[in-house]
């Protein structure tokens, strides 16, 4: 047997399968025929069976009656042992056609008499029946009947009957019945063949419609309902289903069209590829983006073919793409910037979104690619412009701080960083009060400037930085364009300018003093000469030593000794000396004032300023002035000289005069301060700064207040007691530095901490 699964199935299944292929029409006919046949055959069979059984009962009853009659008749012959009589009696059974044999036995079982019909002469041994009554045996009906006389069995009668009557009856009835059944079946077939259409027709119609729908995929057809029965309901359901299918089909088609057109018309390049990089599909934008002729040309590439060998960060494209892909597969999507390559090798910047998707159990990659070359270029341009603007703003020597209406910082340039020590990113968003306390007061101005749309300016605002007074101009520019409300605060440190202005005022003052001095020097010097010379003559004439004195004294009747003694006793010589000293001081003042006039007869030569300074220190160290109460030897000198400071073309004696003046002033100032922790000291610096040589003479004396500092170089301004200073020392120093040497001289001072005189000298005064 072949190993055919169909062969293995039971026949019923095969039959059902076979029948299953039939049309409903045939099936209906078959069912009707089967049902009618079964009904007819059952009815016919029942009829025949009934006849059969009733005939058999009748036959038994007949035979029993016959046996009773013959048993009674046989009693006499048995008793009397008349065998012939008995046989004669039995032969009467010939009239009774079905009886074919009859046997009469004696009680001991021996045969007493027998009868056999002529056509049943074959030797048929009489069956031995133990039971009374009739029995069907094979084609026969047999009967045993005991013949009883006075309760004593005197013999047994056996009758055997054929069943011809029964068979004849069945034959008689069966044939017409069969014919009848056949006729009925034919009628049933004809009827069923006609009537089945009532059911199969609409079904067939529905099936045809369904076939049409499925074949043409035309969901617009509708079946016509033909009845209200189940098939009618089926038709309704079919139509309803069709409506739904049609609706869904339309929706699906619309959706498909929508997505297709999205895909086709999208300006974003959309590409579908396998995880291995094989390109499966690409929309027209992708084809255009990569410079391909058609989709086929693109599909023949792999994703790796569309990348340059290396990305801008120097990583190999393939390795990096695998990483991106891994991320996309892990997260479901991954977005990144990428350098792509057209089919002609031209590279471009792109933004790529990789989506990992499932399509029929297979992982695929949906990539959206957007060419951002233009955007990149614009961004680059924007960045360049922003850098340029920020550079411009940062290059400004002014502090530029942008603020909004609430006073929060929106911009912070480098100068602002420098001044405040707060970085731009730290300042951003903080209030001015937090990051630039100096400007807190400007918020009112900001509001006013914005309200009135005019820049507002505060000039020469003084504030203290590390103990030094700085001056600033603060300008508030309102920002009102483009809806940005706020202002830019510009702070210019004008300390230097203010100092220069101060210096210029000083110089002007000194020059005017110089001019005045030059004009009046002669007029003052003559009377001074008169005073001093006369005093000297007087001094000579009231003491010993001159012959003329002796002579005149003698004439006057006295001696010069007496006169001199008198003069001494009266303390006249110190008075004369005092007159001379005062006269000399007045002369010195005039002399100093005269140095404020521009002179060009000085002799300039190159000098090492450090050496010059040292020489001056040495000179001043020997100056021990008890009267001025300072001892230079107790003052520590700290030298901070830079190496390789070039020589300066200068007038050494004048500079020495300046240094001497500063050192003496400093020493004197320090003598007025009480030192607890530190000792008085000078810090002397010589260094190169701004192409000039800078000399610092710094003391840790009592310092001075701002008012004093401002006026310190003014002629006749002095902090010393009357008679201790002329008020011209620093003015002369200042004049020497600024006018004679074209340098600068400034002073920084912190009350209680000390004072620093700063001198800047050009290396060659004529080049400045």
């Amino acid at each position, binding site marked *: 047997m072949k190993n055919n699964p169909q062969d293995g199935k039971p026949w019923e299944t095969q039959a059902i399968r076979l029948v299953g292929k039939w049309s409903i029409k045939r099936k209906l006919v078959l069912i009707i025929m089967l049902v009618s046949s079964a009904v007819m055959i059952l009815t016919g069979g029942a009829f025949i069976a009934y006849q059969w059984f009733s005939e058999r009962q009748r036959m038994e009853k007949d035979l029993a009656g016959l046996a009773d009659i013959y048993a009674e008749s046989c009693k006499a012959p048995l008793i009397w042992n008349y065998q012939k009589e008995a046989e004669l009696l039995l032969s009467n059974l010939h009239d009774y056609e079905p009886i074919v044999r009859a046997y009469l036995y004696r009680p001991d079982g021996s045969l007493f008499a027998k009868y056999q019909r002529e056509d049943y002469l074959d030797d048929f041994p009489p069956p031995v029946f133990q039971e009374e009554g009739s029995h069907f045996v094979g084609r026969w009906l047999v009967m045993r009947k005991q013949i009883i006389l006075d309760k004593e069995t005197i013999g047994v009668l056996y009758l055997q009957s054929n069943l011809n009557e029964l068979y004849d009856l069945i034959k008689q009835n069966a044939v017409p019945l069969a014919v009848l059944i056949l006729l009925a079946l034919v009628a049933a077939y004809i009827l069923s063949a006609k009537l089945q259409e009532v059911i199969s027709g609409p079904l067939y119609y529905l099936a045809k419609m369904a076939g049409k729908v499925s074949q043409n995929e035309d969901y617009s057809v509708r079946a016509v309902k033909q009845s209200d029965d189940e098939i009618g309901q089926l038709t309704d359901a079919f139509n309803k289903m069709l409506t739904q299918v049609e609706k869904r089909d339309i929706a699906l088609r619309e959706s498909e069209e929508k997505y297709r057109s999205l895909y086709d018309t999208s300006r974003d390049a959309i590409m579908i590829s396998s995880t291995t990089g094989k390109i499966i599909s690409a929309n027209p934008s992708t084809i255009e983006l990569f410079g391909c002729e058609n989709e086929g040309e693109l599909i023949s590439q792999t994703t790796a073919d569309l990348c340059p060998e290396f990305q801008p960060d120097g990583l190999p494209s393939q390795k990096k793409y695998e990483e991106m892909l891994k991320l996309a597969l892990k997260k479901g999507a991954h977005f990144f910037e990428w350098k792509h390559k057209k089919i002609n090798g031209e590279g471009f910047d792109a933004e790529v979104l990789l989506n990992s998707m499932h399509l029929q159990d297979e992982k695929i990659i949906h990539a959206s690619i957007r060419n951002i070359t233009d955007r990149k270029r614009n961004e680059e341009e924007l960045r360049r412009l922003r850098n340029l603007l920020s550079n411009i703003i940062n290059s400004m020597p002014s502090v530029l701080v942008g603020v909004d209406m609430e006073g929060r910082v929106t911009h912070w340039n480098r100068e602002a960083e420098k001044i405040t020590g707060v970085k731009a990113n730290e300042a951003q968003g903080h209030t001015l009060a937090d990051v630039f306390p100096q400007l807190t007061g400007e918020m009112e101005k900001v509001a006013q400037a914005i309200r009135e749309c005019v820049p507002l300016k505060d000039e020469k605002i003084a504030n203290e930085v590390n103990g030094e007074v700085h001056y600033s101009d603060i300008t508030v520019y309102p920002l009102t364009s483009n809806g940005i409300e706020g202002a830019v605060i510009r702070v210019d440190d004008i300390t230097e300018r203010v100092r220069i202005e101060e210096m210029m005022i000083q110089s002007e003052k000194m020059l005017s003093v110089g001019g005045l*001095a*030059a004009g009046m*020097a*002669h*007029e*003052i*010097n*003559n*009377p*001074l*000469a*008169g*005073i*001093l*010379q*006369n005093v*000297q*003559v007087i001094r*000579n*004439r009231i003491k010993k030593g*001159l012959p*003329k004195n002796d002579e005149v004294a003698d004439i006057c009747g006295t001696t010069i000794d007496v006169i001199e003694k008198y003069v001494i006793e009266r303390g006249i010589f110190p008075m004369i000396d005092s007159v001379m000293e005062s*006269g*000399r001081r007045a*002369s010195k003042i*005039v*002399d100093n004032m*005269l140095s404020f*006039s521009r*002179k060009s007869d000085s002799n300039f030569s190159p000098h090492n300023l450090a050496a010059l300074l040292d020489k001056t220190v040495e000179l001043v160290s020997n100056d021990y002035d008890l009267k001025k109460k300072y001892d230079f030897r107790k003052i520590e000198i700290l030298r901070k000289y830079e190496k390789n400071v070039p020589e300066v073309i200068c007038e050494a004696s004048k500079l020495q005069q300046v240094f001497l003046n500063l050192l003496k002033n400093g020493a004197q100032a320090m003598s007025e301060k009480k030192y607890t922790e530190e000792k008085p000291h000078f810090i002397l610096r010589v260094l190169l700064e701004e192409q000039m040589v800078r000399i610092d003479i710094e003391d840790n004396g009592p310092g001075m207040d701002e008012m004093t500092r401002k006026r310190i170089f003014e002629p006749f301004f002095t902090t010393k007691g009357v008679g201790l200073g002329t008020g011209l020392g620093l003015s002369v120093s200042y004049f020497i530095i600024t006018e004679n040497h074209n340098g600068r001289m400034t002073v920084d001072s912190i009350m209680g901490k000390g004072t620093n005189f700063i001198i800047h000298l050009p290396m060659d005064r004529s080049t400045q």
Partner: protein
Amino acid sequence: MIKVLVVDDDVSVCKSLVGFLEDSNFEVASVSSGEEALVLAIKEYFDVAIVDLRLPEISGDALILKAHQLVPGLRFIIHTGSVGYRLSDELKQIGLLPAHVFMKPMDDLNELVEGIKKLVTGEEEE
């Protein structure tokens, strides 16, 4: 004895100079103007003339040049209150030196005395 002529229009200066120089054993005469000086210089002999520069009418400079012409042997010392005074070339030509210029006021008139003595003895000249 060295004879000195003091020319100064400031009486106080003039008188004190005369007094001091006389005390220093010079023979001294004084005038208060250039004209008087010239007249006197021609009339009398002087070793040295001490000349103030700012004089009425004839200035000190002009006086020196004129006197040098008229009295070639006369020597000159300039005594002035003008600050920043410089010898003119003409004065230099007739032999005046910066050492011969004394500025008013002098701290000590003995300097002037020394200057006169040197000038007369010719010590400072090469």
